[in-house]
């Protein structure tokens, strides 16, 4: 057994006890079948309650792109018994923070509060989820704001590049459009469409709840049963639309807005259930995500080609992508692309040195711990693995899986995915007319 392997096992033993020290996770079930994932953490007198909805952008039809987001915004704007203003006041009276997010693969509505306010907070959260009234005036008001946000996205060079990249990479699949949808679909969206989305997806069949913080499992169950225990079940969810790899292509986006240029290069990558998932996550950590990663070291530190240098590999239910991007001066584009290609080729041919892999794993473990410091993040991570179909307990096992990645795994996966042409988008400064 190599030294690295022994060190890894010791580190893992340590980690298991850590997770336990951070609070035991239990799963409870309400009378209507809704699952509650509970974690008691007493370090601060605060509680978070996060409702996960298994429907996300992936479940939208092209003609209703943006409905998940738009519908969620309007849900916050008044219920059968509370106006928008009353809701805002009652939430803020107890100092609670309400947040709502729509992701490509799921949706989430959460409330965080000091422990004394938890009953009231869950009552308000349940009211928003169960009894929204979708006022027509609010829909028109928010439509303007959503359309404005879609427009101002392109004041940011990253979004300009990434939106185009998503479009050529995913074609008509829902992953191709921004989370807020498209101007034409948002403009045409009716109140009935928004209500229908809510009716179909905010049911006992589609939701589960994560409760974390200074609250016992008994109290969590009682409170959730009171406010969520009689939600009716919905129809069995339809299977999501699988994304299929398209033919790689390149695109140049001339822009008079930006002084810098931007280069984005990417390949198709495995989904969250794929056995190559953790290996690709390791490749992403090895290449980007940090200053001692290969991309930053090479493209910024050694070659000074650009300031912003990174890679990303989103965790997705279906086809994902591994993307390298950098902000750079226009003249450096060709040099940067050539060097990136050489670095990809190296992944395919040369085994990653043991020490580099150990270091990368250590980095991942540290980031994981740092990311689990707040109850909000602890709850979110449990819900995230659950909603992606890996189960909440995978929050711990994920690290084990990452730690067992070998240099050979990396070479194999690089050869499997980084083949042939790649997708490329370049934003280049153009002269104003």
């Amino acid at each position, binding site marked *: 057994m190599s030294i690295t392997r022994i060190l890894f096992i010791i580190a893992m033993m340590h980690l298991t006890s850590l997770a336990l020290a951070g609070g035991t996770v239990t799963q409870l079930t309400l009378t209507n079948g809704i699952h509650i994932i509970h974690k008691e953490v007493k370090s601060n007198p605060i509680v978070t309650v996060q409702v996960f909805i298994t429907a996300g952008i992936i479940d939208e039809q092209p003609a209703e792109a943006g409905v998940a987001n738009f519908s969620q915004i309007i849900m916050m704007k008044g219920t059968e018994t509370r106006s928008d203003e009353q809701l805002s006041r009652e939430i803020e009276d107890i100092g609670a923070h309400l947040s709502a997010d729509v992701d490509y693969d799921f949706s989430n509505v959460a409330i965080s509060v000091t422990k004394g306010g938890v009953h009231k907070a869950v009552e308000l959260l349940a009211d928003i989820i169960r009894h929204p009234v979708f006022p027509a005036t609010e829909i028109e008001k928010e439509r303007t704001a959503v359309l404005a946000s879609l427009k101002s996205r392109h004041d940011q060079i990253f979004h300009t590049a990434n939106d185009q990249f998503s479009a050529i990479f995913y074609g008509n699949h829902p992953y191709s459009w921004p989370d807020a949808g498209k101007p034409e679909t948002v403009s045409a969206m009716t109140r009935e469409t928004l209500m229908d989305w809510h009716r179909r997806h905010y049911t006992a069949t589609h939701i589960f709840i994560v409760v974390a913080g200074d609250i016992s499992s008994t109290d969590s169950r009682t409170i959730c049963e009171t406010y969520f225990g009689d939600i009716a079940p919905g129809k069995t969810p339809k299977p999501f639309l699988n994304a299929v790899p398209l033919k790689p292509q390149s695109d140049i986006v001339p822009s008079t807005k930006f002084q810098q240029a931007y280069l984005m290069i990417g390949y198709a990558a495995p989904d969250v259930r794929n056995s190559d998932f953790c290996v690709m996550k390791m490749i992403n950590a090895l290449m980007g995500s940090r200053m001692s990663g290969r991309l930053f070291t090479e493209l910024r530190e050694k070659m000074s080609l650009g*300031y912003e240098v990174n890679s990303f590999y989103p965790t997705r239910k279906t086809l994902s992508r591994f993307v390298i991007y950098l902000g750079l001066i226009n003249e450096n584009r060709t040099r940067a692309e050539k060097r990136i290609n050489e670095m990809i080729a190296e992944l395919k041919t040369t085994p990653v040195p043991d020490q580099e892999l150990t270091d990368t794993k250590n980095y991942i473990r540290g980031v994981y711990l740092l990311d689990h410091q707040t109850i909000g993040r602890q709850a979110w991570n449990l819900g995230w693995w659950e909603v992606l179909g890996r189960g909440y307990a995978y929050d711990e096992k994920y690290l084990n899986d990452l730690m067992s990645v070998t240099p050979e795994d990396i070479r194999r996966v690089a050869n499997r995915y980084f083949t042939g042409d790649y997708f490329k988008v370049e934003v280049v400064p153009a002269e104003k007319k």
Partner: protein
Amino acid sequence: MRLDNGLTVLVTENKALPVVSVQVWVRVGSINETAATRGLSHFLEHLIFKGTKRYPGDEISRRVENNGGMINAGTSKEFTQFYIDSQKNGFEDAVRMLADAMANAAMPDDEINRERPVVIEEIKRAADNPSSELYNSFSSALFPTTPYHYNVIGSSTVIRTVRRKDILDYYHHHYVPANMIVSIGGDVDTPAALALIRETFGAQKNHPAPAHPAVIEPPHAAVTVKTTKQVEQLYWLGGFTGPDCGAPLLYAADIVSTILGGGRSSRLNRVLREDKQLVYGIGSSFWPQGGTGVFSISAVCSAENVTKVPTEITRELDFFLANGPTDAELTRAKEMTRSQWYFDQETAHDQAATAGYWHLMGYPSMPDTYIENINKVTAGDVTDFLKMYYQPQGLTSAVLIPEKK
């Protein structure tokens, strides 16, 4: 705790998870710069991690990440903060490396020259970003006389041409123990941590801390700076000068900011966004500084509302000044502030940063007394704050107006 060489050390133990945060706060930022050194505090922040004799090249960032940590730094107008957040077992390494970097950064010519285009690129990125451009214009207009006038990112010309000798002089002048605070948070044992700090930072020579510029901005007439830019929406940022960190009305400033624009139930959000539908988003904040503070309101709207939005904001402020807060608003704002305080203190990093920041500002007891003082704010304090700092109809502002296509 203060060491013999003038260094201040703070330890906030938190054993919830085996993580630590080691932070160094240096009292140097853009307010300490001159025309010849504009942007040097920020450039130096980049160069400090470019190696020492003991940790050459990128050894520091490499070791931090290999220990399972993150290293970063940030420069503001009044300070530069360096930090390493890490698994517990990276603690000793983190302290040794930060101590060495603060005293012995090598900054060889080739590293400096390699970093120049990187920082120039960052200056360009800032110019491409509507929010940072807006903030810089606003800040310059709000502070015509004090060094808060200048932005942190600085001048491309200085970055292109500044000599190594001048960089080193600036470094040796400002990076002295008496001008620094080391703040540690997380899973450490205080006696052992202090012993390590004494051995490392404590061994550095004592030099007098440099003098700091006067940063109290005298009252002045409101100014509006309009810039046309290729943006999709109109971006507006306005406000007025507020109390410094030590002023009694500091707490009232936070309450005013919450009532006015601190949440969905806030006045500006209700009136300008929900009722009159003039803006897509609006909020306010109070930013305390060592000297004159900044009370600001930001809004994003469509170009056609360029005059209506500031008129309505002013109307709300005038009304607030004349009538004060309601009891419900005051109670709600206090509850929101208290709750936010707990959520802002969850991580080892946040705890160390709160302690470090308030020490640097000269009010070390702030983390212990803040909530108590928030609880004491009365409706009279709120009105007094507005009377003292807000001139009716007088908001200094910066506007980014979309270019006509």
